[in-house]
């Protein structure tokens, strides 16, 4: 495989992981504008474990994922007392604070960035992306998937129907942050250099936007969103900035005409119609 193609696929894989990190909270009704902060946490923890303590990159990435999950769990308690726009703002503030704290940690390079010695190659990253997809796919198709959607739709009804609203919201948030942490670790070990300023709110915005572009009604939407976002610059051989201008234009068009995203349940049904058995006879 050519180095160029591999580079694109690595980006795609990491963007897919990030997409699912944002997807689960969105399904639970949470707009996480601090995704990049969790990504940064995973990146720096994993990098530090390999640089300063000689860990191997894959165990370090897993440990970083667990630690990011722990951070997400701790932060979830105060943050999930807020709702709607307040929640989005709280995640935004959290993301900014995390990055600012890292900026001041000279042990991991501070403002000059942090070179990462241990390397993770494309095969591992691809496997990770596939595993994340499979895991989230399975999770989404358990009662958990229906339940978090119910909570995001109508908290009162979910509560009345016996669901533990707070627990579900916390779980969605924590899992989302863990997956973001994993993406960060993979990023750190592949690009061999991380700097805090990269994990800013605009990165969180891009991630959330391409997930919404793909569509959050089905498990496949985030895949499409990540693919579009990753492949747009390859399709348009212009400068990097034009890709984002076009991306922004796509989002605006989408919000005007198809805010539910590209991949919706009805679209999926129509695509797979031929595969379904004939509908049950009405009683």
């Amino acid at each position, binding site marked *: 495989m050519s180095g160029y193609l591999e580079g694109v696929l690595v980006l795609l894989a990491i963007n897919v992981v990030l997409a699912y990190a944002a997807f689960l909270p969105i399904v639970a009704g949470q707009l996480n504008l601090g995704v990049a902060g969790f990504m940064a946490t995973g990146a720096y923890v994993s990098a530090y474990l390999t640089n300063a303590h000689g860990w191997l990159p894959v165990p370090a990435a897993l440990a970083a994922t667990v630690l990011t999950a722990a951070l997400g769990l701790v932060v979830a308690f105060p943050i999930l007392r807020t709702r709607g726009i307040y929640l989005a703002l709280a995640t935004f503030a959290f993301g900014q604070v995390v990055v600012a704290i890292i900026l001041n940690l000279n042990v991991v390079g501070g403002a000059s960035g942090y070179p990462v010695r241990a390397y993770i190659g494309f095969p591992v990253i691809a496997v990770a992306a596939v595993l994340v997809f499979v895991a989230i796919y*399975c999770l989404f198709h358990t*009662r958990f998937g*229906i339940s978090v959607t119910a909570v995001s739709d109508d908290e009162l009804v979910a509560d009345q*129907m*016996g669901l533990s609203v707070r627990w579900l919201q916390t779980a969605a948030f924590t899992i989302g942050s863990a997956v973001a942490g994993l993406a960060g670790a993979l990023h750190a070990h592949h690009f061999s250099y991380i700097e805090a300023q990269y994990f800013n709110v605009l990165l969180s915005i891009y991630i959330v936007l391409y997930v919404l572009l793909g569509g959050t009604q089905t498990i496949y939407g985030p895949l499409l969103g990540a693919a579009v976002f990753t492949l747009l610059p390859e399709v348009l051989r212009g400068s990097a900035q034009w890709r984002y201008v076009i991306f922004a234009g796509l989002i605006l068009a989408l919000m005007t005409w198809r805010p539910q995203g590209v991949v919706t*349940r009805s679209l999926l049904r129509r695509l797979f119609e031929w595969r379904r058995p004939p509908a049950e006879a*009405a009683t």
Partner: protein
Amino acid sequence: MAAPAGGGGDVSAARPILALEAVSKRFGGLSVIQELSFEVLPGERVALIGPNGAGKTTAFNLITGVYPVDAGRILLDGEDITRLPARKRIRAGLARTFQNIRLLQHLTVLENVMVAQYARHPSLAGMLQPVNLLRGNRWQREARAALGEAGLAQYAEEATGSLPYGIQKRIELVRALLARPRILLLDEPAAGLNPAETEALAAQLAAISGSGVTLLVVEHDMHFIGAFCRRVVVLNFGCKIAECDCDAVGDDPRVRAAYLGADTELAAAHA
């Protein structure tokens, strides 16, 4: 949790399945429920009636835990559930439907009714059951069967938003039933239904009652109540003003005053 066996209308003399003891509730300075006490015996079919604003839906909301009571107790089969969080009440066998339909917009009809299945197995394992992974799994089969029994099987994969009002109401009822409740609270189940739908509803409720589920129904349709309920509890201004057999309720002077009094006010307002 299996539904208790027993024929329809078989009222046992055992302890009440639902009891309110001097329940009171204020919103701000307004007292909406005042020392409300009544009981429902297992297997009964009781109607809760009263003019608009009497507090019927509020009473329901207190029973199901939407709001906490300010005073008094609520007992479910002898167990004090006054402080029990709402989500645990349906798990204990107390299910309800809503006056304004509250189906979940982003789930299909099938998924909507399946939500209530969790109440029977509220645990981490219950949450991780693969209910949507492969078609034909047992939770889907159970839910489809329930929809089929209600004549709604063809709507299983539909989005709820565009369905007719009467269909949505019936879906809500199926959802509540899938929690296998011991007592079912129905908030104006016949409102907005045409005569044919109302008859079908009455038949359905009769069947539900026949399987042993206790019914507490808020309704305005006196004809529907009369054909269906044994006993009536009458509310006005948050207080119980009467409690009697259905046949006698129309003659009760207090009840007449409550309804006709309200009508007179209305008439005067429009004069």
